[in-house]
């Protein structure tokens, strides 16, 4: 007993004296971690217009709530593999993000992606970082206050989003005659609304507030209706790569547990006047797993 214990102590001492990094080579890591260690870079998929989660700022650099959280994960990755890594950004949109994750182009998706079970056949998710749902954005004077009012009107929907399916399902259920304009992303959806091409645009309610905030005439628009879907957001990682997933979970648990999340949340959502939902606070608490 004592003998083994001494050996453990010796091993610990060796680690403490800095031998460990010399022993850990890139090939000691597999999957995404191995790839990051080998290339010295991590590839982050970001969105161009998901305000305030992941979007391009005035310098056309990605920033936002999800990007900040991802930087915490990058730090944790650096700690794990014992060296600094470069961050390379790749723009993704709702149509491309899952394919690009599945085929290995991006290592971590930092956007505004709903975690659902269908998508989990292709990709894996880290703990929930935001809770939202589908609502409708319209002009205040449009007379639209719920899905039912869309009858005979037109709405833009971003292809490949959960919102697209939620609105289409609601429209079908109510038997409405709605003209749907498929758009590529939120910016194009908002553009269609601003240029009066459509009467409404629909996506997750929090993103709608973000779009209003970035609009030149925020007072003209309103978010209306009930939630048409439940959309818990999570950062996306590759499937079947539990080592990398664990690093992500550790980083997020640390952020949730330490309360850092409150500052990050405030930084991005206070300007929109959106306080943290009780449901979201519970999600943070549940994600704050002990060490």
């Amino acid at each position, binding site marked *: 007993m004592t003998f083994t214990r001494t050996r453990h102590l010796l091993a610990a001492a060796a680690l403490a004296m800095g031998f460990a990094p010399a022993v850990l080579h890139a090939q000691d890591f597999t999957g995404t971690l191995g790839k990051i260690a080998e290339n010295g870079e991590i590839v982050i998929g970001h969105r161009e217009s998901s305000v305030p989660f992941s979007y391009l700022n005035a310098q056309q650099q990605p920033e936002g709530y999800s990007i900040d959280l991802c930087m915490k994960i990058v730090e944790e990755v650096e700690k794990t593999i014992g060296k600094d890594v470069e961050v390379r950004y*790749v723009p*993704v949109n709702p149509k491309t993000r899952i394919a690009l994750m599945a*085929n290995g*182009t991006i290592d971590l998706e930092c956007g505004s992606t709903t975690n659902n079970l269908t998508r989990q056949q292709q990709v894996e998710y880290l703990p929930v970082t935001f809770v939202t749902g589908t609502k409708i954005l319209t002009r205040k004077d449009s007379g639209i206050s719920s899905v039912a009012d869309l009858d005979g009107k037109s709405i833009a929907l971003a292809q490949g989003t959960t919102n697209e399916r939620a609105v289409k399902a609601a429209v079908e259920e109510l038997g409405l005659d709605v003209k749907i304009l498929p758009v590529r992303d939120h*910016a194009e959806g908002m*553009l269609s609304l601003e*240029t009066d091409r459509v009467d409404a645009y629909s996506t997750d309610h929090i993103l709608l507030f973000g779009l209003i905030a*970035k609009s030149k005439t925020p007072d003209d628009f309103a978010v209306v209706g009930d939630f048409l879907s439940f959309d818990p957001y999570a950062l996306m990682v590759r499937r079947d790569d539990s080592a990398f997933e664990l690093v992500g979970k550790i980083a997020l648990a640390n952020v949730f547990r330490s309360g850092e999340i409150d500052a990050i949340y405030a930084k991005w959502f206070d300007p929109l006047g959106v306080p943290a939902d009780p449901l979201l606070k519970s999600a943070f608490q549940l994600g704050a797993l002990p060490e």
Partner: protein
Amino acid sequence: MGDFDFGVILNNLPFLWQGLQLSLLLTFLAVLGGIALGTLLALARLSGIKPLALVAAAYVNLIRSVPLILVIFWFYFLVPLALGRPIGGFYSALIAFVMFEAAYYSEIMRAGIQSVKKGQVHAGQATGLGYWQIQRYIVLPQAFRNMIPILVTQGIILFQDTSLVFVVSLRDLMTASSIVARTEGRLVEMYLFAALVYFVICFAGSLFVRRLQTRMAT
């Protein structure tokens, strides 16, 4: 949307310039790759080896039947899946362009190779040169020279085609202009500006081709 605003173009000039650089780089590399692969395809079709010629012909006709956008989708999503490792958006797009344009370049090179007089090939054979030596020293140099104007014209078309990387969000001139147009709400300015830049470059290119043609004709 108010009056024409030059400021939005000036403010975003560095970003747009980066986009144009990506367009030009993609064009340059795809022209080189496309001509190289296209020449091999053309040689395969003219090789006289039946299976080889058939495969090359099938490839060329297949690619020439489908839209470039579909080819970009194919390669952008499926090449990394097939290789089992990621190669990045730029390289996926580059591979798609090389594979696509090679089909068009192969037709040009085939015509170019056929424009070289048979007698020269026979003369090469008579002096004891092998197949590759004849191609390398006699046929291909002349085929290239005869086809230069058409090769450059195809290059101009390719440059226009690179705007289609917009569908996969690769940040070329078109995508960059679009991003600015949407975030700043300046559609008219940005799309007209993009049109002007493409026009100036392509028109200059076509004037260059015309000069080449007159010089070669004399």
